[in-house]
């Protein structure tokens, strides 16, 4: 064996080891010199409110509301916002883990409107029947329905959301009242101007289910029956009409190219850039397209308006209900305090007013009356009473998945519509019946 190379290798190895060790120590020392992170000590008498999304950032509206709670009455407990990840799935997962471990880490849970049944059936949340009286009549009925499972109130409404039809006022005089009208106008105007006809949420995710259900409701149909044991997509041929509309809209070029990968933001970009005639989106887009923000220029500022979502008959309107409800964790050690907070937040004028100021639709009926001047609030006030919640049954996730798996490929191909809807309906029914 070469003595020289073994010594050399030993030297190099030692030199390296020394250097690496020094570097590692230096880093660890500097790392340890960081002060302890904020919020790592939990105060004993505070309520932990677990909720995700942009509104839960430090200083954003959820925190403002939490501070307001304490400001109004200093004898109340402090509420701390515990921010959850941005994606809805991750939020649910983190709350699920905490609940499955029966941890008392969260007192108040911010639930998407479609999770009520699941959380209730798993025993993760407390029944809120005893505060129902405080909420009924003050809070929108449709929002209440989204927090109700098997006639029991499990989650109290916090904020809500409904879909608008955005249209270009410089290209179209009157917003269409029926879907067929919309398709026709979209095609005509789109071709004339060389832009897309209609943008919505067409990617394979929950947004597609929302769009699809709005079509179904607009045709006089529904998703599940009153008893919750049967799927009713075939009622009034609604499912067929809905899928047919999507399919032919795609084939005729009414849908924007890339519709099938669009979520809310992609559609907004397109419409905001002046490249679409109609858009189905949530109210949040209204303010963003006003062009007031320098770093967010809008080609359509001043040239668009909002209208209720059309139906197939031209009568009425049905939008899907979105938003968040608040539930009390079944493992919380401060349930009564938590319930008080939850009841307060839905009914307090100032709290709900804060929401409205931050482009988040409130659930308090009276707030809409107070804010009639704002076009977004006015339209919301008009359509929210007819807005339909997606049924918050425990099986909703499965139903939604099934719909996505079937409707998405179907509208992107020439699959036979009626058969597809019938088999989908059968599948959903069998899922509901366990």
């Amino acid at each position: 064996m070469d003595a020289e190379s073994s010594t050399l290798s030993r030297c190099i190895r030692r030199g390296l080891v020394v250097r690496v060790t020094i570097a590692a120590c230096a880093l660890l020392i500097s790392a340890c010199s960081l002060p302890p992170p904020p919020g790592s000590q939990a105060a004993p008498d505070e309520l932990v409110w677990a909720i995700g999304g942009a509104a839960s950032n430090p200083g954003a509206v959820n925190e403002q509301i939490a501070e307001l709670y304490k400001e109004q009455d200093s004898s109340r407990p402090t509420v701390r916002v515990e921010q959850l990840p941005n994606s809805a799935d991750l939020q649910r997962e983190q709350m699920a883990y905490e609940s499955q471990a029966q941890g008392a880490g969260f007192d108040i849970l911010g639930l998407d409107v479609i999770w009520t049944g699941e959380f209730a059936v798993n025993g993760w949340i407390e029944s809120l029947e005893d505060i129902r009286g405080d909420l009924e009549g003050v809070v929108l009925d449709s929002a209440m329905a989204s927090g109700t499972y098997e006639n029991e109130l499990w989650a109290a409404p916090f904020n809500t959301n409904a879909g608008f039809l955005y249209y270009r006022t410089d290209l179209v005089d009157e917003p269409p009242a029926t879907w067929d009208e919309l398709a026709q106008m979209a095609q005509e105007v789109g071709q004339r101007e060389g832009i897309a006809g209609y943008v919505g949420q067409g990617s394979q995710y929950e947004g597609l289910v929302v769009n699809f259900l709005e079509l179904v409701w607009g045709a006089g149909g529904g998703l599940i029956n009153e008893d919750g044991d049967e799927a009713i997509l075939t009622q009034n041929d609604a499912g067929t009409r809905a899928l047919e509309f999507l399919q032919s809209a795609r084939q005729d070029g009414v849908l924007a190219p890339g519709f099938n990968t669009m979520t809310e933001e992609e559609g907004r970009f397109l419409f905001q850039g002046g490249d679409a005639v109609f858009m189905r989106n949530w109210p949040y887009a209204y303010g963003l397209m006003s062009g007031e923000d320098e770093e967010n220029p809008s080609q359509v500022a001043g040239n668009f308006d909002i209208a209720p979502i059309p139906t197939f008959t031209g009568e009425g309107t049905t939008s899907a209900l979105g938003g968040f409800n608040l539930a009390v964790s079944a493992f919380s050690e401060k349930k009564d305090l938590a319930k008080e907070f939850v009841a307060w937040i839905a009914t307090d004028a100032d709290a709900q007013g804060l929401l409205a100021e931050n482009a988040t639709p409130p659930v308090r009926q009276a707030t809409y009356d107070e804010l009639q001047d704002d076009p977004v609030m006015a339209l919301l006030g008009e359509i929210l009473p007819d807005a339909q919640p997606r049924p918050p049954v425990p099986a909703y996730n499965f139903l939604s998945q099934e719909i996505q798996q079937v409707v998405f490929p179907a509208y992107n191909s020439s699959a036979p519509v009626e058969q597809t809807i019938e088999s989908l309906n059968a599948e959903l029914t069998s899922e509901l019946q366990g």
Partner: protein
Amino acid sequence: MAVETETPVTERQPEESQHKGMSERQLARVFVAPSVITMVVVAAFPIIFAIFLSLYAYQGRQQTGFAGLGNYIEAFTDPRFWDSVIATFVFTVASVTFEFLIGMGFALIMNRAFFGRGVIRATILIPWVIPTVISAQMWFNMFNITPGFVNSVLPFVPADFNWLGTENWAMFAIVFADVWKTAPFVALLLLAGLQTIPEDLYEAARVDGASAIQRFRSVTLPLLKPAILVALLFRTVDALRIYDLPAVMTGGAFGTETLSVLVQQFIVQTPDPGLGSAFSTLTFIVVLGVGIVFVSLLGRDLVIGEEE
């Protein structure tokens, strides 16, 4: 002679030779012990638990009774399962093939580079260094029709070409994103192997009059075989389990739902622990099968001191 035993807490052999430290046989067991213990605790137990779960029926998250092989039957009769098997294999074959061709090319080039060697080697790791969850978002942003970066950069592609929303092209985009990230990794593995090949062998071959291609075939490839097989093995099993790219870029649409995406669906998004564990076990069997094939190819060349 002092015996340096720096191994962490492990089983102690009852008698250690006083003069020569541990014998080879004892050393072997001591050496293998920490790895085994770690993997048993972290991997073996949850695997067994998951397989156990797969034998039970669930309604949502609530257990409703013993299902035996019921979940497996449900899995096998679900066309969605078979679609995902096909998607996974298509992805794996395409991705591994291209990353090897490209990776080998890179490795050969880097082996013979005559300037900036260190810089190149650092550069080559950049794709690997970027976290997968982020590179998935990055490629989604690039391929997606809005804002349409790829469309704007490629001259022969129309501005409204819907990569992620078109059958087959969606798979192409995902394969591309994966190859971008992993070809450099393969190149690194192969390069390390290339550099163990002594100069003299090439010299000897050249003296014998072998051309470059012949040298590659007779010197490089045989000596590189272990490295190639290891790289192939790990890249293949990784590709079979790909999750982030299809989940972020297409959500599994248009035939890109791979086995891992399917598993994630049933463990996290629409939880059914029984069915989800069944899918996981099936995935495991598929991937393990492929892995064992590779190991048996590797095995003979690799180990010395095997006892019967």
